[in-house]
């Protein structure tokens, strides 16, 4: 292996987290946007409160970061809250800054621009007008960064760590979302859908950009069971769990190709097992939705831990 293909463990760590933080910022901005949108249409105070509780639960924030009041404002603009969009973009950009020489100039410029944009935005004027445009800019900024990354960076080890960060973050966020919005009753076919429920289901789909993709497969006939099936097992939709796990598997295989030491490690058995589980499981197999989601989440956590043990925080004796 030539020097240029080597990658410092610290750099892999920073790229991974850069990607995770950006994905998380994008996810939160999408969910906040959808939530605000939903409240324009119809809202009793109680429903609004329930939605807000669900929103916070599905974001699965660390306890310290859960806002007590001004929830949306805090999660959007409060830099002192580590889970706010602005803090996440700052953290993503800080990780990028730590490894600038690994990024293409275009990537750095894009993430820096996004950061300067959110830092420079006049908060009150955004808040008084409708913040939809603001959330849209965050998402566009993140999408643009992903596009620039794919188009300008060598698809080397670093690129694969970026993919891993994105897909691990995305799959965990999806599992949390499903866990909050659905329970075992939703697994049964033939659900009666009230108007209110219809709006909520559509919003759930939209909060993972899945509405249009869903209708292409199931038509506009919205059913919880099909949504769960779609978001867990569809292999073509970039925000489905299966797609994410395939992405993780692909990048892990690519890393294994590039690193002699990593061959046949536990990491690959874990990832392979999860991937094959998702390619064979069907919605009928799910007895308890919550247990199913939690089980998969734990498998992903173990993949994450083993990724670190294999490439980043390995003991010195194993690597000489």
């Amino acid at each position, binding site marked *: *292996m030539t*020097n*240029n293909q*080597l*990658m*410092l*463990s*610290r750099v*892999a760590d920073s790229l991974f987290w850069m990607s995770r933080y950006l994905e998380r910022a994008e996810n939160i901005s999408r969910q906040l946007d959808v939530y605000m949108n939903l409240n324009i249409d119809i809202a009793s105070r109680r429903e609004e409160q329930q939605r807000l509780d669900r929103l916070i639960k599905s974001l699965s924030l660390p306890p310290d970061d859960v806002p007590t009041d001004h929830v949306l404002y805090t999660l959007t603009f409060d830099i002192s809250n580590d889970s706010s969009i602005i803090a996440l973009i700052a953290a993503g950009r*800080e990780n990028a*800054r*730590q490894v*600038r*020489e690994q990024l293409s*100039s275009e990537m*750095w*410029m894009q993430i*820096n*621009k996004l950061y*300067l944009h959110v830092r420079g935005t006049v908060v009150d004027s955004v808040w008084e007008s409708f913040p939809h445009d603001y959330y849209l800019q965050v998402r566009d900024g993140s999408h643009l960064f992903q596009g620039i990354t794919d188009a300008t960076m060598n698809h080397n*080890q670093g690129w694969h760590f970026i993919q891993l960060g994105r897909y691990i973050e995305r799959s965990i966020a999806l599992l949390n979302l499903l866990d909050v919005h659905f329970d075992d009753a939703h697994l049964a076919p033939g659900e009666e859908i009230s108007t209110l429920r219809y709006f909520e289901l559509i919003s759930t789909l939209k909060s993972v950009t899945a509405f249009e993709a869903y209708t292409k497969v199931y038509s506009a006939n919205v059913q919880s069971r099909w949504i769960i099936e779609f978001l867990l097992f569809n292999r073509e939709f970039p925000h489905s769990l299966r797609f994410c796990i395939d992405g993780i598997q692909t990048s892990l295989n690519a*890393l294994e190709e*590039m*690193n*002699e*030491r990593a061959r046949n490690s536990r990491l690959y058995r874990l990832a392979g097992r999860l991937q094959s589980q998702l390619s064979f499981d069907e919605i009928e197999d799910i007895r308890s939705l919550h247990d199913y989601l939690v089980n998969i989440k734990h498998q992903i956590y173990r993949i994450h831990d083993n990724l670190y043990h294999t*490439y*980043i925080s*390995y003991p*010195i004796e194993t*690597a*000489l």
Partner: protein
Amino acid sequence: MSLRSLTALLEKYESPHTCYDETFAERYEPRPHYANLMDRLLELSATDLNSHQHAADVAFLNQGITFTVYGDGEGTERTFPFDLLPRIITGQEWDHIESGLKQRLRALNHFLHDIYHEGKVFRDKVIPYGMVASSKHYRREMRDVDVPHNIYVAICGTDLIRMPGGNFAVLEDNLRVPSGVSYMLANRQVAKNVFPRLFHNYGVRPVDRYGQALLSTLQSFAPHTDNPTVVLLTPGVYNSAYYEHTFLARQMGIQLVEGRDLIVHDGYVYMRTTSGLKKVDVIYRRLDDDFLDALTFRADTQLGVNGLFNAYRQGNVALANAIGTGVADDKAIYAYVPSLIKYYLGEEPILDTVETFLLEDDKQRQHVIQNIDKLVVKAVGESGGYGLLIGPASTQKEREEFIQAIEANPRSYIAQPTISLSSAPCFVDNQIESRHIDLRPFILYGGDDINIVPGGLTRVALRRGSLVVNSSQGGGSKDTWVLYD
């Protein structure tokens, strides 16, 4: 040519009487090598220049070409202000500068080898041993350590000023971890965008190969020649020159490492990679001596690598620059450099130096204290414009504080006459005004020879009348055009 009637831009331009004006020989009379630039300026309005300036500022900000300023809270990132108008140096002037810099760097390297080995220079009474041993940057640990090719200073950035008479003089040598070369390269890119045709027709020598030249310089120090691994060691993202570290690592295609990425095992240095540990042969370290190895130097730091000095002593890894070079850019030792050039090379110094008063000498100290309002006083071990008193611009209180400090610790200060740096036109607030500038060329000394890219960083004191050009003190910079003839 009369510029007076043609442009409003120059209306307020006045060259200071006390210094050399780089551009104008007389009011509205540009020197010949500036004539074409001035012609081009006549075609532009303040609005045109403003839009160029804006485009340049945005380019710097979006590329993140920033430095960090200490002391105002959390370490703010700022862009280094860029002035649109290039500074131009003729081929003849450059040839003189180049030969002077090479001569000086050779002599300083002989000096470093000598003081860390036989010490002939002390026996021959060219410089007192106490002067060297008392330098803050003298490293006793380097006694009898051999460095590859006997080259201590491989990477050097020397600050030159132009004296009122038009001659260039060395203001100080930066022999430890000089910075600024990335701005030289970035300024060139921007200047080419601003004045593409003009640049093309001017006959400017290129600076673009610096990265390649730096890499081969570094490789020449490797303990073996079989595809050596070179890395750049940075203190990390909070260092003021971090942008430059990333930039250079990328230009050279080498790993940018921090102390925590490196491990010393059995006398060799390794870096921690996703593919396991990888041996490192040459370290371009942008970290001061003190922070390199907590086992040998300062113990209260985690920026360096434990055991690095041991691996270095054994010759298993090369460092550029070597450890202990700072003794030769001590501002008191600066006063001896002309004698050192004569002593080691048997040549007359090509470049002038600035008269320097050493304050351990009673007579000189009395003179300085009596005339402190006319002099510049500098702390010998500091850089970046810190620890500086400019007599004519100082308050009574500041002068008294410096006098006290001098009397308490005379070895720690030197004094020099206040020299008006040369001035050049700069675009400031919709007008072209005169500002003071200096020049920092970048010199590389590898196993083969000394290599200087034609140009350097022209720093500008952006505050009107100010003589301090350091980026940390509100300085800016210009592109530097060295002409073929």
